[in-house]
């Protein structure tokens, strides 16, 4: 073992688990992790559509005005609208007809956690929120779960400052609906996007998954700094031209 093991921390929050690995822990790291986990629980309390008393739930029911919410609520809704516009309506903050900005919030929370670690002086860390990953520094080796073989990896991405987000049906079934048709998206087993910032990368992964494979790959290929690996229910793999490394089975 040449290098020391990174400092690791896991936190159950937002209905999933956030995992942290910090390769350059310093005297401020523990306090930063405490601030981050407090912030994540606060984000959950404000934004969770599963908590009837969250600001988002009350806002959605018309019991709370937007300007009575935390300032971050308006900003999150603005970002949701931006992604919806950029993706031709394949993203929504009303997935089942009611206010639910979760498609943006988790990736954004991962990015905020990473930002807080950087503010505490870390230039070598990675943060995963339920499988959506932001790495800072590197090289980091990011395994991409194989959607068709539980427990196995489809590929491994190695790089610096990567954001890697995967949308798929392996964990929670066909839960992503095409906002334009209302039908569950079933053309892909999983879609993994590689970008640089996880908030956008994660939201784009959700939207592109709803587009289906052909449209998704064309849309991603046209966006600079974004690459994708699509795994079809048949096991067929398709990538954008710039996807790093060999992806063939």
């Amino acid at each position, binding site marked *: *073992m040449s290098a020391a*093991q*990174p400092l*690791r921390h*896991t936190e*159950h929050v937002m*209905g*999933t*688990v956030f*995992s942290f*690995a910090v390769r350059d822990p310093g005297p401020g790291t523990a306090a930063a992790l405490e601030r981050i986990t407090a912030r994540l629980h606060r984000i959950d309390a404000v934004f969770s559509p599963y908590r009837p008393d969250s600001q988002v739930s009350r806002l959605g029911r018309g019991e709370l005005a937007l300007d009575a919410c935390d300032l971050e609520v308006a900003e999150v809704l603005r970002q949701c609208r931006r992604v919806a516009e950029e993706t031709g309506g394949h993203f929504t903050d009303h997935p089942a007809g009611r206010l639910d900005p979760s498609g943006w919030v*988790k990736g954004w929370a991962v990015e905020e956690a990473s930002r807080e670690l950087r503010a505490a002086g870390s230039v070598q860390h*990675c943060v*995963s929120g*339920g*499988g*959506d*990953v932001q*790495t800072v520094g590197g090289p*980091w*080796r*990011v*395994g*991409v*779960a*194989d*959607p068709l*073989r*539980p*427990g*196995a*990896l*489809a*590929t*491994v*991405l*190695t790089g610096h400052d990567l954001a*890697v*987000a*995967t*949308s*798929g*049906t*392996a*964990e*929670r079934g066909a839960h992503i609906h095409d906002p334009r048709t209302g039908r569950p998206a079933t053309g892909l087993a*999983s879609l*993994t996007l590689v970008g640089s910032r996880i908030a956008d990368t994660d939201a784009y992964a959700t939207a592109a998954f709803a587009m289906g494979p052909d449209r998704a790959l064309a849309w991603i290929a046209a966006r600079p700094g974004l690459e994708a690996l699509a795994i079809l229910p048949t096991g067929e793999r398709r990538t954008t031209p710039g996807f*790093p*490394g*060999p*992806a*063939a*089975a």
Partner: protein
Amino acid sequence: MRRAVVTAAATTAGVVLLLSLKPHTGQGGAATRPISSDPGAAAAEPPSTASTAGPSAAAGPSSGAAPSSAAPATATRSITGDAADTRYGPVQVKVTLAGARITRIDVLRYPNDSGRDRSISGYALPQLNQEAIAAQSADIDVVSGASYTSDGYTRSLQSALDKAHA
């Protein structure tokens, strides 16, 4: 060395946990036919051999992985964990390493008394091994996959990684 022993213990704990979740009948006996994570290995290898399996077994199920930086020539060694006594019988694993990388896990002893034990062991133990190999032979830091719930996390590779390095 110390880490390898910890890993062997963790793997045993995983096997025990897995078995304890399944309904069992009868008193557990101990099997002598090892289960190997190496898909090509004949399962008839006698237990407690200080095997020196070549590092070629490292591929595991993650064959689609990007080529890892060619591993430096490292010694292959295997470590046999203590048998863990469970209410269903003893469970014992052997871990083979090339350097710090696990290349193979053999389950040397496992409950094998009843028909149900045999079918659970035959299915569940190799499955568990595949997962351990997939995550550890690829030497990854983190896993991206479809969003898991808090429950789903406990079955995820990320959970295995977090535990392995905790």
